[in-house]
Structures are given as C-alpha cells and as structure tokens.
C-alpha cells in the first residue's frame, strides 16, 4: 500500500495539548504563540482499529516497551511509512484505537491493557497506563483538522 499517513490534532479531555520539552513528549496548556509548539500526531491506519502513531512528520514513532511487568512509552527514531511496510517490526508501534462518543483511546497492541495517557497535572510526560485512576487521563480528542 502507498503512504496513507494522515496528520491529526490530539488533546486530552481536560484540554492538554502535546508538545516537546527537552526531547520528551509532554501534555500541557499552551497559551498565545506557544500554541505553535503543539505536536500533531501522524497516523497510519493498518486496520480500521489498528494504527501507527508518530510525531514530527512521522519520523519519531510512539512505541510500547515492556520491562518486567511495566510498560513504558518510548519515542523511536523510525519512519512511520517504513513501519507500515514492515508489519513484523511494527507491533510495538501499533495501537488499538477505540472511539467512544467524541473521544478516542489508544491501547498498545504489544502491551495489552496499557493505554496512552496523560496526567491531571500539566506539563507532565505522556505515557502509558494500565489503570483507570482518576488522575490519569486515557481519553483524547483526536481530530483531523480544526473547523473554526
């Protein structure tokens, strides 16, 4: 299949936007001209529910890496289009996207039960969570473009 990369805006249900801070993906409130720092998500659907996620034009991809019983979110320097062509390599980069009303959640295919998450507190790293705790947010708005 050809390149089917699409760019989306992502923000959690408490309005935190993704941005990079010292090479780390974090979520916070962006003000004034800082809104230009927003990291948009590049996505390739490999199945209607399975997606590859990246940032920076698909050159840094979101992956789940397991250490013991713990799963970590890692950004890896790999091209999302190459991952799309090499399905054997792409498992840890694959997320199951589930829509619920206006929002979506992203469960790692390689780390079942672990969901992409932000924290209630602003400017904290984007990560993976396996709980439904109050201070962990796993529901995101995920939209192609803003209609203003």
């Amino acid at each position, binding site marked *: 299949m050809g390149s089917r990369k699409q760019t989306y805006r992502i923000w959690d249900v408490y309005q935190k936007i993704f*941005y990079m801070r010292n090479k780390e993906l974090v979520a916070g409130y962006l003000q004034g001209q800082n809104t230009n720092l927003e990291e948009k998500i590049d996505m390739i659907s490999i199945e209607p529910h399975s997606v590859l996620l990246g940032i920076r034009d698909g050159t840094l991809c979101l992956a789940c890496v397991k250490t013991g019983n713990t799963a970590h979110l890692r950004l890896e320097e790999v091209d999302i289009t190459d991952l799309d062509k090499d399905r054997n390599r792409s498992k840890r980069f694959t997320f199951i996207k589930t829509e619920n009303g206006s929002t979506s959640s992203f469960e790692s295919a390689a780390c079942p039960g672990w969901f992409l998450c932000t924290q209630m507190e602003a400017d904290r790293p984007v990560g993976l969570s396996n709980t439904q705790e109050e201070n962990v947010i796993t529901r995101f708005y995920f939209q192609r473009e803003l*209609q203003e």
Partner: protein
Amino acid sequence: MDLSKCRFLGTGPQISVFCLQKLLGFFFFFCVLSENVSANSIQPKKSTENCLHLGKHFKRFMVEGEPVILNTPFPKLHNKIFFSLHYNLSWHKNDSDKTLLGTSKSGRIWMDNDDLWILPASLEDTGTYICTLRNASYCATRSVELKVFKKSEASLQYISYRQVLVTSGPGYLVCPEIKNFIQDRNKTEIKWYKDSVLLDQSNKKFSILKGSIYCLINNVSLDDSGYYTCELPFVYKGVKYNITRHVKVHIMKKKEETIPVIITPNKTVLTSLGSKLVIPCKAFFGLGSRSTTLLWWTANNTFLDNVYKKGRVKEGQRLEYSENNKSYIEVPLIFNSVEKKDLNTEFICTAKNRLGTQSLQARVKEELTFSWGIAVAPLSLIFLLFIGIWIHRRWKQRPEKVYTTRKSMIIGHDCQTSTPYRKEMI
C-alpha cells in the same frame, strides 16, 4: 499521585519517572543531568557560569498587576526535589546584574517550594529566568521566559489559551495554570465568564463545581465558541488579587461515519499496452470522520507493494475532499506502463471502516490501437472506390453504342407489343 500507575519515557537518554521514584537522590540528579547529554560529558561544576544548561521552557505571558508563579523547570517528586539529597536550588534573572532572586520573603519576588513567586508582576519582570540546581559536585540550569504585558496592550490573542470541544456531547473547559493559587480547595470558587457575561448557576448549560477548576458544558453546540474567562480570588498578606485566565474556545462539529460506498472506478478501463494509466478509486463516506477509513488497491488479492516490487504499478497519493458537504476519499491506481499480463489481473479497490467494507473490481482491457491493418483498410477502400469509378467511366464511354443497340432492341421489341409502355420506357 501514585506515579507507578502511569509510566513515562521519552526519546534517547531520558528519565523514567518510575525509576526515579525508586532510586536515591544522587541517581536522580544524575538522571536529570543526563537528560540532554551523555554521562561522559558531565563535569563537576563549581560556579553557575559553568553549569550545564539543559534547555529552556516556553514563554509565559502574563498581565501586569497579577501574581505570577514560575514553576521550577526541574521535575518534582512529591513536591520535593531530590528528597534524599542535599541540593541547592536558586533563581536569577538573565540580565546584567545576574542577581539572585527570592532570597528574602519581604520583597515582591520570593521562592516557595522551589517555585519563584512574583507578586504583583510588573513590566520590568519581562525576561529570561534561570533556575540553577547544584549539589557538591554537579550543577545544571534550565531557563524559563516571562513576558509581562501592559494591561492596555494585553490583547486576548497574546495571552489566551486554546481549548477545543466537539459538538453533541458534554465537554470540559479548564482554568489553566491556576492550581498553585488555590488556597482552600473546599472554599475555592472560580467564576467563569463567556464573552464577559458571568455564567451562574441559573444557566443550565454550564456546570461549575465548587473546588474544581473545570467548567462542564452539558451539551456542546457550535455557538459555545468564543472567549471565556475564569477568575480566582487570591488573598496574600491581606491584599486581594484576581487570578485571571483567558481561554479561546473552538468548537468542532462531530463527524458521523457511514458505511463506505465506492463510486468509481468503472468496471472496465480501456487502455493500450505500453501506455501510462491512472484508475482512480473514489469512495463516499457520508458526512463522517475519515480517521478510520481505509482505501486500498490489490492485484489478485495481494497488496501492490508485494506484487510490484519496483513500483511499476502502485497507489498514488490519498486525497480527501468534500463535495456538496459530502466527504470523499480517493486513491488512484497508477500504471507506469501497462503490460499484457495486466489484462488478466484482478485489480480490486477496497474501502473499509468500522461499519463495513466494500470492494469493486476494475478490469483493464486493451483498446484497439494503430496497426497497419487498420491504417491500410480505409486506403484500400478508397483505392477500390477509385477503381470502381474508373471502371464505371470506361464502361460508360465504350458501351454507349451497345447500350443504344440494346435500347433500340428493347424499343423495337416493345413497339411490337404496346405503345403506351414504350412511351413510358422512353
């Protein structure tokens, strides 16, 4: 917050919060330093000037007269940096004096729990603030920028936060970067305004809970977009301040997804061998979201990449567009050069989303193209026509007499039988 429930890692030599929670302060300090550089490059530093700079945080935009808190740009754990390590954290402004800030509690600027408080902010506070973290052997800095606007120049577009909601459901607006000013959570009451009109409890559309920094819009509609303001009273040393945040709210229409319907290609596509060919596959997805809709081509039930390794036949760029408010996706099938085997290949376009799948086959057929047979055929006809005309003329010239003879013979014959008939013949 139990951080072990949410684990975080970034790229490269990053910190794992989980690991930090478990390790002792020294290792934590090492982690902080190694966020941007390799361990080899860390050298013991004695003075601030030689500290390792670990990058800057984005600018904060505030209005004069308001209290400002610059949070320490170093990660905190349980509100304590380096909980088991002796460390020293200091702030200074990156101006000519480089004076240390917040050393006394009596002034306008002080340090509280490693954060820098400026109360109230004035125009001259604009600048870069450097936060320095050191222990006996290591030193690191991070900077934070602050811009303080004059009240009259604080245009909403410079200072407001962007928030977005989607129609047809409930959605939260958040009063951002205000938590540090909440003195008593149970008594906290944030006032919300939309375009300067107070949203009070009588307004059923909005729910504002005591002690919460959120404003819940019960059923988001397009006319909820606009500028919102949230306001929190804050009292310090008997002086009452208002912490104000402005939020620009965008509303997006929720998109409804439908089962995909493929509109083109036509079942048979005529082409000639050796030529370039593009067959677009166009599918209709209703008014809906295209986020999970797939459209792809296969050749004999195999993905094109696997069949045409050199890309003689490939998919073109995916296009998404709207016509008369309806959403379409189009993916073309591109042949660099059509070959004979393509005529016997099943090219199928498939459109799929979570509601359904549809496929349509396009058959490539050879169109009659230039050949000598075709070119010679009309020429032969013309040639035959000329021959015909020539023969006809020859016939007309020579057999004039013969014809006359025949005619007279007939006439003669007729004369003998019936005169009216003879007349008719003449």
